[in-house]
């Protein structure tokens, strides 16, 4: 048969998304939240599907199949059995939450028909197969061990498998309720952050603390076995039979009740964060060692929400358990849409796996798989609004914007296809000068309107990455944490401060804006192949300043989905203290813009994660 178009969909839990492939070529992928402007939107991703068909320029009758990323029947089985075991205590949870969710999931074919106006075949895969497929098929490897770790799929929470050619298989599973992802989420909840979105905050908080609770966690919360398997002590977790993640026993374990959201973060939360990070890393390393032993393979691929823990990924890399590691950039549930499509392409339609675009390169196109804007669209936008804008060539844009950054200006950068996955990788990013010691607090407090402790990530020219960071590998997806090189560090006094604010703004290196309190950095290496416009910008910055590192954070404010359209970008630009906005080849300066009229109190529009 000719190469089929297959549309993958993940939805109705969190971070709905759609992806479309042609054969095994990834044409497009995007999260629904970017279109609806509702963070982590879980609804059926009608807009993302629309975009996928737009990018492929096909009508629905050209789609061979639509694949849903998990199996609602197996999920039903898990929920029914869990609630039966929970007894009367779980009934309310069932009636208010799970039933409605399942009803929706069981109606996927109807939702598809309503949206596409025709009856396209709908197939289902399994949650962790979707993750496994998303990790292996786009990877650079012909064969690899596969590790998926997240909260929960149907029953599985962790799977160990392998990928060879155009097949993936799962050899071992750890089942709900024993879940590394749910353990991390429960602690996220306990520390006052939102489940399924605040986990990365916990990770960012960890370096401020000491792992003084690690033994307590090992002793009471999780039993880690030598073979990488684990079991949770369910007395401490509420997710089986209530709407909360933890029980009063957890309060007792950590010496008091959970932190309430937006209240002051104390040393206890910092230490808990540090402790759970240590234990999570141990669990991941044990799983990795086990799967290395059982598969004998030298490559490892990862997916699932826990694979977004870039600190653990960095540790995994440094331990050298595997020769090579590749992490799916959309490792969370959004990535399940892509995995589901690839799974069916290879397993059902026996699509052969195409050659990698270059030796050692992956098939994700830098994860720049979302919508792009054309200069004509941007021109239409700025013309309609009478917004002063300067159209520049690519070269002039790089030169001018680099010069503005060097002067300490903060840049909104909206160029090229939007990223698929949670990270901004230079297509929808806020950028600044990494040498600027005030950049972190300015960007956090005056632009992102979020907690001041949150670290920012560096984007560095690939060929110069090792001058700044102890990293030899590529890290194009910002999923590896590496130490800042010792020779550019600034010694700091070790404090045991109760108030983290006193240590946040201490310069710790010659690139203080991206050096975390423990001298670590979540590195993105940038080359001229996947993202030439971004590469040119950093190159220009390097030429002008002698520094090949810039600050990169997602183009949004707290709790807001990353911007997608010129309207989103302009609104965010005008609401915050950004100085320059770049949308494709149009450059807008804040001091030239007309007064911005904004309806409502937008700072209350988006909640903290």
């Amino acid at each position: 048969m000719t190469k089929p178009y297959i549309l993958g969909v993940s939805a109705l839990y969190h971070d709905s998304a759609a992806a479309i492939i042609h054969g095994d070529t990834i044409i497009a992928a995007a999260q629904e939240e970017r279109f609806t402007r509702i963070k982590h939107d879980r609804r059926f991703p009608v807009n993302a599907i629309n975009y996928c068909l737009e990018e492929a320029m096909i009508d629905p009758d050209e789609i061979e199949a639509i694949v849903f990323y998990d199996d609602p029947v197996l999920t039903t089985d898990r929920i029914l059995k869990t609630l039966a075991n929970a007894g009367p205590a779980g009934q309310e949870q069932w009636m208010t939450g799970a039933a409605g969710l399942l009803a929706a999931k069981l109606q996927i074919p109807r939702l598809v028909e309503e949206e596409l106006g025709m009856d396209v075949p709908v197939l289902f895969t399994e949650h962790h197969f979707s993750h496994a497929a998303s990790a292996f098929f786009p990877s650079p490897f012909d064969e690899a061990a596969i590790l998926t770790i997240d909260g929960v799929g149907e029953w599985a929470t962790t799977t160990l498998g392998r990928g060879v050619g155009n097949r993936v298989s799962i050899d071992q599973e750890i089942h709900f309720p024993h879940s590394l992802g749910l353990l991390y989420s429960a602690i996220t909840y306990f520390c006052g952050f939102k489940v399924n979105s605040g986990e990365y905050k916990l990770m960012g908080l960890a370096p401020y603390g000491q792992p003084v609770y690690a033994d307590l966690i090992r002793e009471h919360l999780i039993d880690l076995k030598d073979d990488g398997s684990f079991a949770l002590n369910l007395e401490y977790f509420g997710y089986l039979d209530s709407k909360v993640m933890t029980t009063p026993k957890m309060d007792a374990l950590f010496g008091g009740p959970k932190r309430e959201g937006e209240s002051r973060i104390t040393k206890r939360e910092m230490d808990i964060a540090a402790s759970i990070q240590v234990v999570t890393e141990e669990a991941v390393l044990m799983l990795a060692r086990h799967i290395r032993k059982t598969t004998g393979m030298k490559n490892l691929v990862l997916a699932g929400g826990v694979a977004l823990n870039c600190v653990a990924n960095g540790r995994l890399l440094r331990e050298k358990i595997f020769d090579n590691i590749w992490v799916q950039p959309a490792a969370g549930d959004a990535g399940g849409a892509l995995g589901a499509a690839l799974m069916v392409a290879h397993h059902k339609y026996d699509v052969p796996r195409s050659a990698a675009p270059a030796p050692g390169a992956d098939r994700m196109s830098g994860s720049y798989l979302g919508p792009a804007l054309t200069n004509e669209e941007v021109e239409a936008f700025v013309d309609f609004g009478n917004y002063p804008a300067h159209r520049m060539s690519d070269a002039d844009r790089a030169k001018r914007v680099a010069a503005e950054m060097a002067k300490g200006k903060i840049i909104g950068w909206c160029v090229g296809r939007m990223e698929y996955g949670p990270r901004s990788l230079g297509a929808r990013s806020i950028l600044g000068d990494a040498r600027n010691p005030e950049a972190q607090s300015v960007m956090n407090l005056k632009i992102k309107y979020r907690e001041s402790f949150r670290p920012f990530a560096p984007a560095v020219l690939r060929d110069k990455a090792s001058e700044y960071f102890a990293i030899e590998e590529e890290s194009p997806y910002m999923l590896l944490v590496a130490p800042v090189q010792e020779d550019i560090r600034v010694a700091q006094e070790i404090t045991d401060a109760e108030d983290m604010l006193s240590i946040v703004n201490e310069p710790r290196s010659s690139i203080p804006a991206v050096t975390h309190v423990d001298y670590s950095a979540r590195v993105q290496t940038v080359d001229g192949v996947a993202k030439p416009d971004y590469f040119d910008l950093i190159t220009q910055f390097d030429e002008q300043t002698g520094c090949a590192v810039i600050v990169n954070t997602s183009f949004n404010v707290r709790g807001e989905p990353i911007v997608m359209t010129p309207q989103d970008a302009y609104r965010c630009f005008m609401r915050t203290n950004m100085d320059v906005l770049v949308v494709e080849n149009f450059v807008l300066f804040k001091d030239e813009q007309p007064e911005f009229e904004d309806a409502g109190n937008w700072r209350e529009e988006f909640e903290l994660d």
Partner: protein
Amino acid sequence: MARNLFKHDPAIGYRFVPNLKGRVRHEGGGYLVRSNADGFRSDRPFVREASDTQKRVLFFGDSNTAGDGVSNGKRFVDVIEKHLDIAAYNYGLPSSGVDQQYLAWREAGHDVEHDLLVLCPMVDNIRRNLQSARLIHSSMSGDLVMLPKPYFELVDGTLTLRNSPVPKGHLPAPEEEAPEDTSPSGLRKVARKAMGMADKQFPGIRSWSQRARRLALPEAYNDPDSEGWLLMAAILRQWISEAKTPVILCPIPMFDHISGKFRAEPYRQRFAELAKETGVEFVDILDGLRKIDATGDAPLRFPTDEHPTVAGHVAIAAQMVPAIRKHLSLDTKPLSVASNS
């Protein structure tokens, strides 16, 4: 939020963002939109110089011609192009009046060499010609807004262009949407409101009532001296007088005309009179569409959206093909509706 499809145009009001590649969600399952460098919804560039190998026909109209609801390649202009092996240039502009369609011709079509000009005003466009702004859903925000448009006034019998250049930006939408036809009397307003309430209570009663009364809508066609028709006729007269090629005048009926809910005779009479006066061919596609609607399997319109389906476009194309073929002296077979729907 959908991709923004349109850009401001000081002469026409707006046109498609050039070189656009988009898709619009729709009750029919969604449709693909491509525009060319000139900002019209066409897969092909509009070339000024004539081709030695292919006849070229220019089509003007509103969203029915532009093809709201169906993908590029499936609209009646595309169907005609494929069937007759001609180069069909689609200048359709959604939500436009005939005033804007004429201005699009002046701005973008006049200098393009061609063999035939096909004017496809939608019958209901007569109301839009009287408006200085159109109530639309902003494709940027989704909000209901008023979009300024150019319009003509008849001053001492002469067409006078207003709102030109067209101001940028949106105007606030009125509290309530403007009534469908012009200036109803106070009593009729009350009756209309009562009918609206009754229709909510007994769905379909409004439609039944309209069918029973066989209203002739839009009303402006009922009187050859009405403000609306005088303006419509003046614009078309001007347009035809500037044309350098034969012209086909092919009004697109409303679906209520096809279903028989609205009486069509007034509009048919007006356009026939104008065609005779100006010496152009009036192609009346209503009877053909009624026949296909009555006998065909596929619906010609969407359930809610009053635009033609793919089958509707094929049906419209089938009615136009004979006249275009005759004008171009082409030796092709008639278009079979069944094989294309």
